[in-house]
């Protein structure tokens, strides 16, 4: 009987550990594409609270700079290059971002609490 308990405990422990590991590795991923002419797609991004990875793809012929002051991130990208930023949020809300080299467009990252 006690053997069963141990086995169940071990199985439970392994499954929670692997779940925790998987959730740590599976960072929610989103991408933002910068188009020629100073625009980017999408301009509205819905993300979960916590950490997420934002892939930045510069498809334009000019350098761009992703910047969000409320999210404390900035990243410069040469024409035709790719990069990413990992953003951490602690609360739901709407945070603006823009391309600092082309101030024509502004975007919103909407942080939603999906557990609620």
């Amino acid at each position: 009987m006690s053997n069963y308990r141990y086995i169940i405990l071990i199985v439970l422990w392994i499954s929670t550990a692997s779940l925790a590991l998987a959730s740590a590795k599976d960072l929610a991923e989103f991408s933002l594409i910068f188009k020629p002419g100073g625009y980017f797609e999408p301009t509205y991004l819905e993300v979960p609270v916590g950490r997420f990875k934002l892939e930045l793809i510069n498809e334009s012929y000019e350098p761009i700079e992703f910047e969000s002051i409320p999210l404390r991130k900035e990243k410069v990208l040469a024409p035709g290059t790719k990069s990413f930023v990992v953003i951490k949020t602690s609360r739901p809300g709407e945070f603006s971002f823009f391309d600092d080299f082309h101030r024509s467009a502004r975007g919103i990252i909407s942080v939603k609490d999906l557990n609620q």
Partner: protein
Amino acid sequence: MEQVFFIVWRESIEALLIVGILHSWLCASSKYYPGLPYLWGGVVSGLILSVCFAVILLNISSLLGHIEQEWFQATMSFSACIFIVRTVLWMKKYGCNLKNRVEKSANKSLDRSSWWGVFILAMIAVAREGSETVFFLFSMLTASRSSNQTIMVVWYSAFALMLSIITFWLLQAGKRFISWKIFFCTTELVLLSLASALLVSGLDCFISLNLITPIVDPIWDASWLLDDSSSLGRIAANFFGYRSYPALISVLAWIAYWIVILLLRRYFR
């Protein structure tokens, strides 16, 4: 294409203010003249560093992780902040705030090693924003698809450079129209305020790196009053350390900074 002009000028304004103010202070008396080569030496080294950083950003930006870049930005911001405060207080100590007292205290020996503070400050100030400007211009030039476009980039940058030189000159001329005391106090405040903004941006990097806790993030939402992503809000962010969603730690550090500065100013008066 016209953003070339705007970006070059905007990115250079911070360095321009720091270098311009230091230059006007050093020119106040012949006793500070030995500091001028250090100032210009710092500017030249800053420009060389900018090119090096820009090349790194252009070529191995993927190798350089975002954590390293964040560390780099934090280091640059904090050291610029420290060197501004150090230089301002040092200049006050040697009587730069009172021009008439300058000649009287001329026999007071000036510590040569302190000129290196001026050198390092000028270097960091130029390299900090310069690397981004050089990166921007480099990639504009390499990406331009016609010689016409290349010429436009060169022209716009030349215009921006001219505007920067005019700004620099105006700053130097400014002290002729107002009393030295007012000029010194104003420029001192501009530098100290810039340093407070650098402190806040350094803290932002540290919060991102999980090195410090923001305590409460954010402590308030002031975006209805002034949004830091708007043009005016950007200026407030760059010159006063304004944030529309500040973390409590940033607010506390900002207040602590000004208290320390007030105490130090009293001490050095």
